[in-house]
């Protein structure tokens, strides 16, 4: 069973009004389990909208989305995915451990089970001594690691990430990318990751989904066959730069291709 199947998807905001925006058209995408798929494209291409549709945070205008063989809504109600955003979004009145435990509380886990799970997650993101800290005592990168721990706490098979490292400095960002790969490899989680950094996409993904400017469409799928052994040397390898060039050219092609409606409002 595929982790995510998207077919004939279309999203139009404010249909038949002067403010109508065709965010996404003709989206077909199949994501196999344990894949790491990155959505990349210029600002406003609808990549975040596609992620939010898969998360059932918004409803499609047309088309179907299947997550874990269920409708997107059922998958959300069953908490089949965890989510992380550009803002860590920690609840500032809760300790770090209690933040990680929130989705578990809502799932009805008992206290002892929650506590042992949050301790486990803190180990996983290498911040075991920070459970009783308040979020504001942590740096931005540490907060983002807690947000990832929270997203993975309830063992979701799917992790949806919307530019989670977008607000971090370059050094922290590269460190977080390596950490994310390590965590996902150890948990076998499928990841859909939105970014507009080409090196980030290439370093992380098994497949890069290149999208065009509005109306957003998938213009190319770039496979990244580096396998699971990616480290700091990967970033300096010739094949890494070759992939970056390939994605950049795919993006450029998407940029200059005339759009379906012949209108370019950017």
């Amino acid at each position: 069973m595929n982790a995510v199947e998207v077919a004939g998807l279309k999203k139009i905001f404010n249909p038949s009004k002067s403010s109508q925006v065709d965010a996404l058209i003709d989206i077909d995408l199949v994501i196999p389990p344990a894949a790491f798929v990155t959505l990349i494209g210029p600002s406003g291409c609808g990549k975040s909208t596609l992620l939010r549709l898969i998360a059932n945070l918004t409803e499609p205008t047309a088309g179907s989305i299947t997550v874990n063989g269920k409708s997107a809504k059922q998958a959300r109600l069953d908490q089949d995915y965890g989510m992380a955003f550009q803002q860590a979004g920690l609840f500032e009145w809760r300790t770090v451990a209690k933040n990680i435990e929130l989705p578990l509380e809502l799932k009805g886990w008992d206290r002892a089970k929650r506590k042992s799970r949050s301790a486990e997650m803190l180990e996983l993101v290498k911040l075991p001594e920070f459970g009783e800290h308040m979020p504001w005592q942590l740096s931005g990168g540490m907060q983002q690691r807690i947000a990832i721990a929270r997203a993975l706490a309830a063992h979701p098979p799917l992790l949806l990430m919307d530019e989670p490292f977008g607000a971090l400095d370059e050094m922290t960002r590269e460190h977080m990318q390596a950490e994310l790969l390590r965590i996902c490899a150890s948990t076998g989680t499928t990841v859909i990751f939105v970014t507009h950094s080409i090196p980030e996409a290439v370093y992380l993904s098994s497949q890069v989904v290149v999208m065009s400017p509005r109306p957003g469409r998938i213009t190319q799928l770039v496979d990244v066959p580096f396998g699971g052994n990616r480290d700091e040397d990967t970033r300096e390898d010739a094949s890494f730069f070759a992939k970056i060039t390939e994605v950049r050219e795919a993006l450029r092609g998407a940029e200059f291709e005339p759009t379906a409606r012949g209108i370019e409002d950017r």
Partner: protein
Amino acid sequence: MIRRSTVLLRAVAPPLLFGVLLLGIWEAVVRGFDLKPYFLVPPSAIWSGFTDNFANIWDAMVVSGTNAAFGLIVGSIVGILMAFLLSRYKILDQLITPLSTAVNAIPAFVLVSVFNNMFSTTSVVPRRLMVTLIVFFIVLVNVAKGLRQVDPTHAELMRSYAASKRDVLRKVRVPNAVPYLFTALKVAAPLSVIYAYVSEYFGGAQDGLGSRIASNIANSKNAVGWAYVLGACLLGLTFYLVSIVIEAAVTPGRVAQRNRDGS
């Protein structure tokens, strides 16, 4: 701990010295220009007025403090309850919010006069009602805002967790509103005292600071009048300090965070 007391000293010493300096200038100006007591009394006369009449001033402080505390507590409770109702039922929000804005625009002395006419001349109800109304409005507006203005990321997260409305209220909206409540209380606490004085001034029983200040000055006992003003200041400060102490006790982390951000 040495560092901490040094920090405290640095924060307290400048305004304290400045205050003492101002009092010194005040005293010097009154003596130097031989200003008459009906024009301006010197701080020394106010201080002796304060110590000579301390028992009476204390009684009046207790009376005004009780009036203010009553309004502060009742107004806060009703304001919090109403804020929950408004955040739950949009229609109520649309009905009540314009009404409370309109009521808030009526000058206090008008409302007090109306309330005074409704109850007997020695009743404490009108002044307490007035304070309650003011506090109610401040608490209502702020707490309703805190219940409504949820961080968009928090809202999306809760939706992704398939959280029920009740869970969102308990785990996000209520804790989100707590700092808003304390903001409201820090504004409302000194105001409750001020509105108690104003209400006492406009009639009813003559036992509060508001009426004592007015009657002493009317009888040309200016130094004693000012001594009651000093009592009024102390009472207002006490209310403010209590609201800060309660906030620090309930949400210690946030106060620390604010101090850090502010530095």
